């Protein structure tokens, strides 16, 4: 098993004929993802790499049975594309687009309440269930099927962590990039909840960063609801307040969102926090070993 996506996931790519969409559609197919449809308004009826293209998501779903979406649409149109996917009630909607205006996401967040779809992102590398399905821009080969769940707010830092795990022969059940923007779909808490319920996940790694309250909420959820161990890393302990560190969401404002405060709250909740980013893989291995000896798994 895995969370959100697996070998039965059928993907529609919104913006399939654009530069990014086209490139990553090929990459996803190469990885083994079942890409069944594309959507580009005005190009319905055409084919891209043998994949049928439709004018609307509804057409794509009716004709192909797609149950997940990958959105590669430019920022000014992306919020509308997300709403179209949410309206079609696709199981998982992944929005890769970076640079969507915050107020557009305010509207999307409201729209989400009227849909059963689960939104990942925006501004995310996507989600991968190694060996089964990849909806995103991450390099597939660094991953390895296994039992560690990974949740992250960033892209390349996630690759770094996954790479450390894979090099220690520790595989992953699913890796989810929740996105680096101030307003996002699924949060750390939502994904932690899925991993807690997933029988094939033994441990979860959270890769957080400065800004917002997502890690604090995760700590609270862990304390109240989780039986599986969680290892966390928070990037940005050296970041100055008031400066946006790349991601629109990574900014310390009014004393809130600093790395030290987050680390403190996570540790108090009982989460193992790694201070040195080069030791995340080893720490997971150590926590797993302790758990095995304690529970005789």
């Amino acid at each position, binding site marked *: 098993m895995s969370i959100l996506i697996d070998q039965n996931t059928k993907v529609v790519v919104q913006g399939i004929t654009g530069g990014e969409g086209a490139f990553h559609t090929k*990459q996803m197919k190469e990885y083994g993802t079942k890409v069944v449809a594309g959507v580009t308004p005005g190009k319905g009826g055409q084919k891209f790499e043998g994949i049928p293209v439709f004018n609307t998501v509804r057409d794509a779903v009716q004709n192909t049975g797609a149950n997940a979406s990958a959105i590669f649409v430019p*920022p*000014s149109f992306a919020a509308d594309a997300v709403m179209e996917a949410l309206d079609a009630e696709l199981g998982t909607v992944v929005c890769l687009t970076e*640079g*969507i*205006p*915050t*107020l*557009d*996401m*305010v*509207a999307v*967040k*409201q729209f989400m309440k009227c849909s059963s779809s689960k939104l990942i992102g925006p501004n995310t*590398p996507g989600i991968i269930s190694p060996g089964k399905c990849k909806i995103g*821009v*991450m*390099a597939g080969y*660094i991953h390895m099927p296994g039992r560690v769940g990974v949740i992250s*707010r*960033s*892209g*390349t*830092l*996630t*690759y*770094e962590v996954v*790479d450390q795990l894979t090099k220690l022969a520790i595989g992953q059940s699913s890796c989810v990039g929740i996105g*680096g923007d*101030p*307003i996002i779909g699924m949060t750390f808490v939502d994904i932690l909840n899925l991993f807690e319920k997933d029988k094939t996940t033994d441990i979860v790694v959270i*890769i957080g*960063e*400065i800004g*917002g*309250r997502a890690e604090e*909420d995760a700590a609270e959820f862990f304390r109240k609801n989780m039986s599986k161990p969680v290892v966390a*890393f928070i*990037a*940005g*302990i*050296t*970041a*100055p307040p*008031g*400066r*946006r*560190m*790349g991601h*629109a*969401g*990574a900014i310390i404002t*009014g*004393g809130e969102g600093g*790395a030290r405060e987050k680390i403190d709250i996570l540790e108090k909740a009982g989460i193992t926090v790694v*201070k*040195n*980013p*080069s*030791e995340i893989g080893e720490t997971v291995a150590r926590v797993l070993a302790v758990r095995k000896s304690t529970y005789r798994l």
Partner: protein
Amino acid sequence: MKIHEYQAKALFQSYGIPIPRGHIAKNPEDTLKVAQTIKKGPFVVKAQVHTGGRGKVGGISMVESPIEAEAFADEILGTRLVTGQSGEEGKPVHTLLVEEALLSKMEIYLGIVIDRTQGCPVILASAQGGMEIEEVVRENPGMVITEIIHPAIGLRPFQLSRISYGMHLDGKLIKKMGTIIQNLYRLFLDKDCSLAEINPLVVKKDGEMVALDAKLNFDDNALFRHPDIAALRDLSQENPLEIEASKYNLNYIKLKGNVGCMVNGAGLAMATMDLIKLSGAEPANFLDVGGGATTEMVREGFKLLLSDEDVKVIFINIFGGILRCDTLAKGVVEAAQELCSSLPIVVRLEGTNVIEGRKMLVESGLKFTVASGLGDAAVKVAVAVNASKRGEF
């Protein structure tokens, strides 16, 4: 994006939010003239800089006559104002705002931001506005009224009532306060603000309400649909290296240390800075060349690092996913050759085509130290920093 107080006040005026009488001046003579036009003193002369805390360090002066206003202008224009929030290099003062001074009987704080958890705009208001608002928030959070606005429904009259009655405003002020809140919210939405703040919003002795200060920040991601706002950007308030970086879509922030670092991806860039600090050195900057950097971006990023005189050691940390390591190595080698840099460079490459990439670095004949993995890189950076301190490079 930030704008100046006088620019924010012009927007306030067009949205029906009352502001004091006043005008900007860019030299002492104009300062004198503006004050003379306002006629009646006292006057307030305010330095226009992109930072808070001006009042506490002499960036705002209350003067009795136009001559005194001119003297203050003579003193402050052309200097750099260093405040508690500006960073130690401060911000240059090129423009002053000269206004009539107002006597107030009450100072209100009014702000609108986005609540990230709720995903909605939120209004913050307090009857204890003014320079010490941060302390009020910290020590007496009950003095701050919070109203979350439903984005689809908008601001409701009952919410305006809760704010006004919560601040114990008297009857005549309630309608005025409501109008100002509604206008500020309209401005917030129309212009894609990330922050709209009036601190203080004063109640004058005659009962009129006026925005004594004005602060508007805008969502960088929405500037494409607000060319009028984008045109208000004042480059003099930004670090020249940061401006250069933004031309190439690079994300650069100058810091205090001496290890220049170049990384792809914001999260990994932050983690790299943290790693440098853990190894006992200090990062000179945050530089994110993007998750999908090109050879050109890597080259320009490298040039940027070299143009910072504080940089003594360079650390390049790239995790190439879709992006190939050989492409990246090419950019680094090209830039290093072009600029004839003699600084020690530690390179850590990982990902697609990493073997080819590392080979290109080693065979370039340049002084690269190739690291394999983050831990190894940290050790090598520390060694290079210590060696450079001893003058071995």
